[in-house]
């Protein structure tokens, strides 16, 4: 496969994704939880393998955001992976663009492009850059990487969709560390002022940034209160509990308020020797660590 290939829809994967969505819609809560856990477990294993093969990636953050992305793409977002620019689609913006491998892998589970391409991640001329580019990856709404960019763009999308009379929703997934960027609070203020009730921000609150704990660097707390003070509804949930995430995102809206879901997560979630360890921000597992991580993820039975 040429690494400079143009990414095209994977129709078989799209069909599987559609079947999964129907299954999730019909399932009882236990069935829904099990199906999402299985999907997330598979994504985690692919993330580990992809990063290990590429020798590059942000392992810790990919694993903390996996359950959030899995829940959104499998059970919430209205999308047409065969037509990534369908005007009525819901928009997902991954502001923490360094966690691109989790995003790319999740996009393949919807069929935006075939999973085989993941093996080209970070290779010369691959469309799958270290940070997601709107130019080369179908399903990526805006190029991210520099922090503090996703929320302003999401606010613009929500304003624009409302102007156009569209019912589509906008979800921005943020890292907690990046909330130190002031641009987020400019956007939070605008969203509150404009009462953008179609907008949801999900904070991947793993408590760690590149160099240290957020609380030891530039503390974010009281985080929920900050969002509320900016005119948002704010809820806190376990960011690895798929049903809790699903409930938090889909609960009836307080009309006139954007919603912030603070998803409490563990950086490196699912691999014991990575969990809550600052050094796994962008460490790449060696061969032995990769084997151990994959074994642990398989053993967990996708059900944790």
């Amino acid at each position, binding site marked *: 496969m040429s690494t400079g290939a143009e990414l095209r829809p994977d129709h078989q994967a799209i069909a599987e994704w559609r079947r999964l969505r129907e299954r999730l819609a019909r399932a009882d809560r236990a069935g829904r939880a099990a199906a999402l856990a299985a999907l997330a477990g598979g994504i985690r294993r692919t993330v580990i393998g992809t990063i290990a093969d590429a020798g590059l990636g942000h392992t810790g953050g990919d694993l903390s955001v996996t359950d959030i992305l899995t829940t959104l793409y499998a059970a919430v977002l209205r999308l047409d992976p065969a037509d990534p620019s369908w*005007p009525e689609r819901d*928009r997902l913006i991954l502001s923490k663009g360094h966690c691109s491998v989790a995003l790319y892998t999740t996009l393949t589970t919807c069929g935006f492009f075939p999973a085989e391409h993941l093996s080209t991640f970070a290779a010369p001329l691959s469309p799958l850059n270290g940070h997601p*580019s*709107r*130019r080369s990856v179908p399903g990526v*709404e*805006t*190029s*991210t*990487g*520099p922090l*503090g*960019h996703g*929320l*302003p*763009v*999401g*606010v*613009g*999308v*929500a*304003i*624009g*969709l409302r*102007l*156009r009379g*569209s019912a589509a929703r906008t979800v921005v997934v943020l890292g907690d560390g990046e909330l130190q960027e*002031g*641009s987020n609070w*400019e*956007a939070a*203020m*605008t969203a509150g002022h404009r009462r953008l009730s179609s907008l949801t921000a999900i904070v991947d609150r793993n408590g760690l940034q590149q160099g240290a704990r957020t609380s030891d660097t530039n503390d974010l707390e009281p985080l929920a209160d900050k969002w509320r003070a900016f005119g948002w509804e704010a809820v806190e949930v376990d960011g690895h509990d798929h049903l809790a995430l699903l409930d938090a995102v889909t609960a009836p809206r307080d009309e006139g308020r954007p919603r912030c879901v603070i998803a409490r997560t563990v950086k490196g979630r699912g691999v014991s020797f990575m969990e809550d360890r600052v050094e796994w921000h962008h460490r790449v597992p060696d061969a032995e660590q990769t084997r151990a991580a994959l074994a642990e993820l398989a053993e967990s039975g996708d059900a944790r």
Partner: protein
Amino acid sequence: MKAAHDCRDAFADELVGLARADDRIVAVCNDSVGSSKLAAFAAEFPDRLVNVGIAEQDMVGIGAGLANAGLVPFVCGAATFLTARALEQIKADVAYSAANVKLCGMSPGLSYGALGPTHHSTEDLSWLRAIADLPVVVPADPAQTRAAVRWAARTAGPAFLRIGRFPVPDVSPPDGPAFTYGRAARLREGSDATIVATGTLVSRALEAAELLAGRGVQARVVNVSTVSPLDREEIAAAATQTGAVVTAEEAVPTGGLGAAVAEVVLETRPVPMRLLGPRTFAPTGEPEFLLEHFGLTADGIARATLEVLGRAGA
């Protein structure tokens, strides 16, 4: 040549006309309804004016989001705050994301006069010219401004329009298009030297050519309204056919028009050059005084041309 026009008026009027015909057009601004001349737009299309307040990073990101939602945003703010404060958003959210956003840098150059260097936008051309796939357009008069706005509205993709505030006379020829994207316009023929100018400096370049003609020097005048991508053919022809080039702009020439022209001259036909533009923070003074201070007058351009020709004492 009568200096009469603030190009922001032509910009604002053209934008309202386009917005009547195309409901995808929206205006975005940073508490600059007045200085971006958007009052008429706001009155006619109150829902389509997104005033984010004093928040330029937010403003440019929101512009990219509006484009994602299928709208055509004209994002307006004082050129220095728009470009300096939101440079990374311009690079990542607009240019690298290939978003259909029209960035409109109002009141550029030295036009804020005695408000001082914090308000002067003299680095914007250098910064934005360095960003790939971002057209940088500098209209020189109202006709060019209107044509550039129409071009931006109908052309998918990012663009930066530098909308002048300093009063300028009409310089566009009455026949032919006022603005063709990517093409420089030869406003006066000449074989001894070429003055390449942009924006405010175009009319002054034409006046300089008059002065030079009085001294027996036939200077060609080229109006560069698309600074990036530059019309390489026209610049190479100027160097080859006239053998001397002077550039003039209301911006630092280190990276702006001057550097852009110098790159092409160097790569095609190296000839003597002078690059005119402010190279230091401006002292206190009104715009006219500051242009004079930096030698950005007809006299100053003519003098520089004679120097390049080695005839300063002639």
